């Protein structure tokens, strides 16, 4: 019981520090709007008839009251397309980070908790993965598996596993050296119980901060891969692939690249602001 009360008050303290940070709150508001757009995308404009169906008569129109962000080379409303794109980007970002979090978390906790040979084997393997830049690893996987949304999530997810493993390992190592872990071991708690009940809950904070920042880079990587033709293919309204098709018309119709890029930047920016805010709120000493 007393444990519950303590945790609640600690959470409240973190929340108070977080809410005082103007940047973090701004990030939360922006991402809230994005989540709202993703949730109500079909209400804002129907996917099949507004975001996909071509309307050649209205192609390349500048932003207006009728089409807030103008239209593209097939006369499709760019505002409705970027709104539907929000769904794809948030979805791919969250799923790929979950993949990385799951596998990286397992590898990192095993390496950190058991140490010794387990640690050496896992870390040598991760050293190899870490020797390849994330985006390059993602490109390699997509190039091999072929381009589709699912392969994209796998690629971005797998490419981020080493990072998550490293962060998890580092925090497991820190928590492991606490006296209460020694106490748990002394009273004969089994390994899995110590790891899952005592160590991992206390690693939550740094991993959460890392995950928030990584959703941002995953969204950026997804858009980047689609931009070079290795991600989501047209006519799916993904931001990066919209940028790629708008690129051919930048001379006369710059709105076709401006708005999709703006969406990428705002979503990445807001997640970065939240991540920074969380980090400062969870550990005020770091500021």
């Amino acid at each position, binding site marked *: 019981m007393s444990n519950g009360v303590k945790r609640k008050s600690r959470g409240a303290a973190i929340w108070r520090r977080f809410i005082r940070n103007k940047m973090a709150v701004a990030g939360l508001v922006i991402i809230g709007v994005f989540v709202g757009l993703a949730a109500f995308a079909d209400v804002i404009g129907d996917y099949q008839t507004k975001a996909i169906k071509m309307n050649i008569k209205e192609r390349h129109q500048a932003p207006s009251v009728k089409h807030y962000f103008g239209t593209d080379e097939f006369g499709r409303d760019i505002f409705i397309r970027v709104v539907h794109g929000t769904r794809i980007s948030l979805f791919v970002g969250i799923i790929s980070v979950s993949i990385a979090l799951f596998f990286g978390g397992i590898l990192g906790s095993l390496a950190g908790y058991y140490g010794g040979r387990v640690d050496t084997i896992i870390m040598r393997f991760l*050293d190899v993965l870490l*020797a390849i830049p994330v985006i390059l690893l993602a490109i390699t996987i997509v190039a091999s598996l072929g381009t589709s949304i699912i392969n994209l999530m796998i690629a971005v997810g797998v490419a981020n596993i080493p990072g998550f493993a490293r962060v998890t390992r580092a925090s497991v190592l820190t928590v492991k050296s606490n006296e209460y872990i020694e106490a748990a071991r002394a009273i004969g708690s089994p390994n899995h119980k110590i790891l899952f009940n005592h160590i991992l809950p206390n690693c939550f904070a740094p991993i959460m901060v890392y995950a928030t920042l990584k959703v941002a880079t995953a969204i950026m990587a997804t858009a980047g891969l689609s931009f*070079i033709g290795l991600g989501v293919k047209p006519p799916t309204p993904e931001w990066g692939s919209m940028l790629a098709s708008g690129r051919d018309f930048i001379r006369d119709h710059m709105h076709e*690249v401006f708005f999709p890029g703006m969406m990428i930047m705002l979503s990445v920016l807001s997640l970065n602001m939240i991540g920074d805010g969380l980090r400062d709120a969870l550990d005020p000493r770091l500021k």
Partner: protein
Amino acid sequence: MLRQYIFKRTVMLLPVLLGVTFLVFTIISLTPGDVATMILGQGATAESVAKLRHQLGLDEPLLIQYGRYLAHLFQGDMGISYATQKPVVDEIVGRFPNTLTLAFYSILVSLILSIPIGVISAVKQYSLFDNLGMVFALVGISMPSFWLGLILIILFALNLGWFPSGGADQWQSIVLPAITLGVASTASIARTTRSSMLEVIRQDYIRTAKAKGVGNLQVILKHALKNALIPTLTVIGLEFGELLGGAILTETVFSWPGIGRLMVESIQRKDTPMVLGCIIVFSVAFSVVNLIVDILYALIDPRIKANYQRKGKAA
């Protein structure tokens, strides 16, 4: 002592590189679809497909194929491009300097901007300059380079006509790609410089220097900056790796003839040997840069050197 350290680190790099080539080779080999059929076209007879498969060594186990690739790699042979029928190495050697040039100028751009921003932000903490600088850094980190590149093309190439929008035929061609690629690293180097500078200027020896009557500017440049730059150096190394990755996108935006663009084109053409070659060159470059950073780190930070010397004596 230091020579030993350098030797040890270099030797440690070899298994990693071996692992990288094996991993990349395996992933690329998993590509569905038969290469021989693809080269000969759908109309080819089963016989000729089998013959080509045998010629390319595709009918052998993966490990044997990898062993052969590695043996050739050590002799500087990365195979023949499916698309051009020319040696992969020749193409990569021709293009790699362009990627290095781009990465070099990008890091130059970001150093010129980021270190002054980081230092001034730290010295004038919470001032307007600091706030603006850090907002700029946050936006810079969040800016997709391929989008920034397009915006710069619209502004400076199409509207103002100051710089070309692509290619690499004149010296002005490097300006926009270098800025595009350099912005993200500018932001993170500025942030690191600021926070390590903040830590250093609060330390006792800085107060001592000031108390002795050393001028403000001299304290910052001579006493504080030297120590504050140690973490910055690590970030520069990490950023250089990011730059190599980012070059893939930037080269595509600006039609810059480096290996990033070569790789993207080769993936689209399903030119497996070329893709493999590009990825391996990228990863080796990335690892070598990290090695150089580690060595520089030991050279600059006397604590690391001392630590190593102690260990060396103990052994």
